[in-house]
């Protein structure tokens, strides 16, 4: 790795340094709140560094607009996750949890910046390994341990599958550089031959675990339920964002156009994932389990965007690029989901988290003003996840579904497949409304069960929920700049605007 590349990795290094400080110093002093400030400071320093570094090509990195988008996303979502898991001072495990969280953020940023198969894989593992710690330490009950073990074993299986898929790419191109593989496969210098489809299947399967796509999702409901609200918030954002970015890098960039199987796999996974996620969510009364299935369903929606991009050849004037819609949706989904977990964290008390829909009953009529406000916040998140205008979720779904409708297709019957995909997406959104509205209904139309919650000591998670809600409303009212930011980050935009930068990278 050249020194240029090391400089370019400044933000990641700073975040990892903050993690080290927290880990080491945390052995001597436990208070969680203080370490949270250190963590935020680390993220702030990384943000400053990211803003002041001029992106420049340096193997084995790939600092393009997509990488920058995800690095900013990682920093912002990392800050929100720290706020969400803010605890009162007396918490002995604070430092371990926070350090792991920081490492996961560094991992996300590394995945974003990776221009090489090895570095990409390393980044993904830098997310997975601290996650095991978070799951294990976060909740020391038998349920929590079971969750950690499940995640651990199945994650290893998925990593193995992914590595196997990557080995095909290396074998065909003779290089681990993503751009190199892309060029070789385009020039015909290397060939996957009949193995192209196989490579794609293994890559999709391995990464489907990270994004929790069916049938690689099995762990999600059990693990979400078994861990804390903070842990669930983390799981619903970090692996998913990194997994989608890796999918875009590997399938849409490195293996671009090698096989017409790509869009078919993405489309099949999208159909299966959103439908299964929504149908199973209908049955859930446990909030984290419900949100686990919800996050599975949303991965399905985002796969629509990937399928649209891989399908290529859109109608003239079609407004929405598949990858742009995916990134836009990812942001909106993450805000609403993290916001919900933050709100739940605010409501719960140490050792007694809120984890059942019934526990929210009558929240909107609670005596405590902030609990009443929390009911409105959660309602906003649920409406956004359902996709009701004028909240952000509406525009996210519009971009994905309209993108699918805009595909003309290169093969016969392809257009009708994508039209069917959009229709199925809309039907799914309607089914999803049933369980999101059930949560809203419980808060507004049911009598409270048990004692009213106080939750007064956790004002920071409340603030996190407020920030998320404000953003959900703001994106709903002014969606264009956010979509355009995502649009500038797509591979399509990179091909339009800066061919010379990619040439330099080689």
């Amino acid at each position, binding site marked *: 790795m050249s020194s240029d590349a090391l400089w370019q990795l400044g933000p990641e290094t700073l975040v990892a340094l903050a993690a080290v400080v927290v880990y080491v110093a945390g052995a001597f002093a436990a208070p969680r709140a203080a370490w949270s400030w250190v963590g935020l400071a680390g993220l702030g320093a990384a943000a400053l560094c990211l803003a002041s570094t001029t992106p420049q090509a340096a193997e084995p990195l790939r600092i393009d607009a997509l990488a920058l988008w995800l690095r900013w996303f990682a920093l912002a979502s990392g800050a929100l996750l720290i706020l969400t898991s803010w605890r009162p001072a007396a918490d002995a495990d604070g430092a371990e949890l926070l350090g792991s969280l920081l490492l996961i953020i560094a991992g996300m940023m590394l995945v974003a910046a990776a221009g090489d198969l090895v570095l990409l894989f390393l980044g993904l593992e830098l997310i997975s390994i601290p996650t095991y710690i978070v799951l294990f330490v976060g909740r020391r009950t038998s349920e929590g341990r079971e969750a950690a073990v499940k995640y651990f074993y199945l994650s290893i299986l998925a990593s193995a*599958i992914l590595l196997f898929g990557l080995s095909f790419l290396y074998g065909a191109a003779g290089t681990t550089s993503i751009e190199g593989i892309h060029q070789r496969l385009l020039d015909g210098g290397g060939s996957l031959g009949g193995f192209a489809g196989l490579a794609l299947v*293994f890559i999709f399967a391995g990464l489907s675990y990270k994004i929790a796509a069916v049938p690689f999702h099995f762990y999600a409901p059990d693990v979400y339920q078994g861990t804390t609200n903070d842990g669930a918030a983390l799981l619903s954002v970090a692996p998913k964002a990194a997994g989608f970015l890796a999918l875009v890098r590997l399938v849409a960039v490195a293996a671009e156009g090698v096989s017409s199987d790509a869009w078919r796999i993405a489309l099949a996974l999208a159909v299966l994932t959103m439908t299964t996620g929504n149908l199973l969510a209908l049955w859930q009364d446990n909030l984290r389990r419900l949100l686990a299935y919800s996050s599975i369903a949303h991965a399905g929606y985002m796969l629509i965007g990937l399928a649209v991009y891989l399908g290529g050849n859109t109608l003239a004037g079609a407004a929405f690029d598949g990858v742009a819609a995916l990134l836009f949706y990812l942001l909106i989904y993450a805000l609403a989901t993290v916001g919900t977990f933050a709100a739940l964290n605010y409501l719960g008390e140490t050792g007694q988290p809120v984890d059942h829909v019934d526990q929210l009953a009558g929240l909107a009529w609670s005596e405590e003003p902030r609990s009443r406000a929390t009911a409105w916040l959660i309602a906003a998140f649920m409406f956004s996840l359902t996709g009701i205008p004028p909240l952000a979720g509406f525009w996210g779904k519009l971009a994905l579904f309209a993108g699918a409708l805009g595909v003309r297709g290169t093969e016969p019957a392809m257009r009708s497949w994508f039209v069917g995909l959009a229709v199925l997406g809309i039907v799914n959104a309607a089914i999803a409304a049933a369980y999101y509205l059930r949560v809203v209904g419980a808060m507004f139309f049911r009598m409270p069960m048990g004692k009213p919650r106080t939750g007064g000591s956790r004002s920071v998670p409340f603030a996190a929920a407020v920030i998320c809600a404000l953003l959900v409303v703001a994106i709903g009212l002014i969606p264009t700049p956010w979509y355009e930011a995502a649009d500038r980050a797509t591979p399509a935009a990179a091909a339009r605007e800066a061919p010379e930068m990619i040439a330099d990278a080689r």
Partner: protein
Amino acid sequence: MESWIPLLLVLIPVLPLAGAALTAVLGRPVLAGRSHLPVVVGIAGSFLAAAGLVLAIHGSLPAGANLPGAGDSVNAGYERTVDLWNWAVIGGAYHQPAGPDAFVMRDFRIDVTLRADPLSAIMLAMVTFISLLVAVYSVGYMRGDRGYWRFFAYIGLFVFSMTMLVSVSNFLLLYVFWEAVGLCSYLLIGFWYERPAAAAAGKKAFLVNRIGDFGFALGVFLIWTAFGTLNFHDTLGADGRIVAGVLGEARLEGGSIGIGGGTATWICLLLLLGACGKSAQFPLHVWLPDAMEGPTPVSALIHAATMVTAGVYMLARCAPLLLATVDGQMAVALIGGFTALLGGLIALTQTDLKRILAYSTISQLGYMFLGLGTGTVLGATAGMFHLFTHAFFKALLFLGAGSVMHAMGGVVDIRRFGGLRRILPVTHATFLVGCLALSGFPLLSGFFSKDLILVAVHERAAESGSTGLYQWLYWSAALTALLTAFYTFRAFFSTFYGQKQIPHEAGGQAHEAPRSMLVPLVVLAVCAALVGGYFEVTHGFADYLQQTPSIAYLARQAPQPAATGGHREVMLTSAVIALAGIGLAAALYWPRRSAAADAARRAGQAVGFYQLSLRKFFIDEVYQVLLVWPGLAVARASDWIDQRIIDRLVNFVGRVPPAVGAAIRPVQNGLIPFYAVGMVFGLLVLLAAVLMGWGWLGT
């Protein structure tokens, strides 16, 4: 001054919204009895900004551009748009063939753009001014009410919605705020929701308005398909070419809005349907009288001065669309003239003070529609002028009625009180001014504006080639003027003259209202007396309004006919009519309902007219028979079908997703080996699909 316009345009809606938000958040826990402060201050700031906007636009008008029709200079009017942000873009949504191989493609855009032009500025100034006075009045009127803070939060929200309604520059956003003011109206009509009548009235208003809004929505769709844009103003397309807005300069300059025939007529009729709902025109007027269940300041603000005029505003804004179709114009004029007469006839016999005023509002709105329906620049100006003066005197009358109710312990039946002029001296004096203005007493505001409408209709009737319709409408409007003067003073004399009579609800301590209620009354009375004359003399209103692009277009396309000299004649006629109506009312109801009045009523009863008017021409009953009963019958039948067939079907369909979910739930059994097998199985299926082709999966 012009550089201030963007700031002012933003401040006008934002200040009341901020006030409403503050009151909503802090009202119950902190502000309590001071909940009016944020809203009143917000509206006051908004009014100052609106006044500034009127002046700023006035200062920016091209010099020497006075009467557009008079000179031969081509006057396009003045507009200034401020783009706030772009709410949505959907590329290539509009796709129309424009030749054998060519096609027109446009983006679907929702631009959040505020516009400043004389029409908007006048509406903004009027709305914020009346709102301010009504808000101040409400401080006294609503004092002690349990929902004090809720009331002011709603009022602030309403002022925000209404100012946005008149300043947006896009049909879709117009629709959004059209619904928003409807929502505020619903909330405020049903403000005392514990009272069944109030809750029912709110519901009725909401449902009747749905019919109109449905028409409006269809009209917006049709505008999109016909024009490929929903913006009023011109915008720059993605390809750098100008996309001509529906009412933009690029389109109007050409001398034609580019569509005609059936489409233009349909757009016109659908927009008219929308306007009829909001502005309570026949046959959708039935909600307005019931809306009087709301607090009286609300009746004054929303159901007399501002919201109900939204339909008139929309038609004035769309005047160029109206001009494209003679059928559409005649429909507007006919609906307006007929509603004016109908409202006047019903108001004759009502005994509820607020309902008399409500029917009067319906009738006066009919006048405005009639003015716009002439399709001439004079008619449009007159309609807007009447809207402007009506806002002052009708708000005044409602607030006066509120003051009477305040003193009478909530009683509104004019048969149950009388001779109040000594108990309520200020209310009496201001109410008199309002009544004179409404009846068209010479030299008060209502006289000039109503007169101008009559002149416009008269001229249109005199125009060669026009049908006899306008002649009929002229006579009908003149008759309505007589009715107006009569029913207004019937109510006035019954309330303030004759034998002193106070209902027991007043509790024996009927007294004049507090100062916060009297000051708005006096201010409004001064305005009601003077604004008409001021603008008649200076010509300021007409000259200013005609700088609006839509109205300027009318002036260019349909130049004002040379003065026929009919003006003076019409003015004389209407003065005589007004005096005759007042005199008749005085003869019958002053000092107290006289023997002559009873004789008149008996005569009316003999021919059945009295009943007809008292029961509002049985329109509610007609609704009952034509719509509600069949509706209920259909509902019962549907209910049966629904319960027995559909519900079971739906329940079945509704059970399918959970059932499928339940069927696949056992897979989620919590065992790691099983999950691993599941993942590998999924992998194998995908592999099989790739290796053996997707055919067996159906692709």
